[in-house]
């Protein structure tokens, strides 16, 4: 198990690092195409959007409590509260709503 672990760990870490490092290190030109610039401008928002929905609905215990946490996060973020405040309120909301749901 340990020998196997080391081999797989090296394969895993190396692949992950190279995927990050090669484009970041060797891509040196300024992108001139307007389309490519705009495309890259939208990428981070789209990555996070796709990573959040629908996975957030299953991240905090039950669907209902996760949904409550998600809505709390939306409202907090819309009012531009800092990252940590949004995360804390979402977790507490999910925790409390899970308790409330169980009582009901």
């Amino acid at each position: 198990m340990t020998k196997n672990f080391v081999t797989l760990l090296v394969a895993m870490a190396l692949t992950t690092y190279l995927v990050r490092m090669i484009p970041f290190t060797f891509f040196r030109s300024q992108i001139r195409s307007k389309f490519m610039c705009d495309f890259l401008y939208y990428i981070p928002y789209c990555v996070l959007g796709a990573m959040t929905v629908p996975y957030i609905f299953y991240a905090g215990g039950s669907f209902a409590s996760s949904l409550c946490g998600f809505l709390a996060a939306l409202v907090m973020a819309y009012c531009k509260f800092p990252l940590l405040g949004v995360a804390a309120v979402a977790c507490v909301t999910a925790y409390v709503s899970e308790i409330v749901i169980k009582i009901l």
Partner: protein
Amino acid sequence: MNYTYGLKRGLPIALGYLSVAFGFGITAVSAGLAPWQAVIVSLTNFTSAGQVAGVSVIATLGTVIEMIIAQFIINLRYALMGIALTQKLSGKFTFLHRFIAAFGISDESFVMAVSEKEKVTPAYMYGLMTLPIMAWTLGTAIGAYSGSVLPISVRDALGLAIYAMFVAIIVPPARDNRAVMWAVIMAAALSSLIYYVPWLSAHISSGFSVIICAVVASAALAKLCPVNEVEKEEQSND
């Protein structure tokens, strides 16, 4: 754009990672890894989705090829992010700096770095990655060695932290810029489509789904709503 400023920007990310890594520690140990193995995986990989897939390959004694393909596909988004980030780098970013800083590219640190007003310096990137890497490793250790101590209800609620953080990163710019809002909605809708249509979710892994959704939504928006330089300015001055 110095090291201390980077540290400050990395702090909220680190706190979010602490709870997510905690969850990963629990997952890894229950999959059959020793706690020290879980910690080393986090320290050497520093990525969430890829590690969850990697641990299942390790636990099921998968092949090296399987591991490489899984990591390549799930982490391919970092290649896109890396290219996007090169456009924001200051002249101080030499070959060696890029070589080192590449390790610190994560979904959150990338979004933080590209949304800075100024060009990104090596010192800033090192500051930005310091606390998240420490927190990611530390959180894994705490979860792996003591995860079973916490009640399940608390663990469940903490699972929401990282996603709430994503929401906190994307909602404010989406509120101020309609095109960004549509980009996010489109990516989220596509992601839901892949998730809920059984045939699609059976054939597309979650890592690959993120790439497809992000590329399609970004390309569509770049085509339909070219970014106005003034808008970009307004937003980053917020």
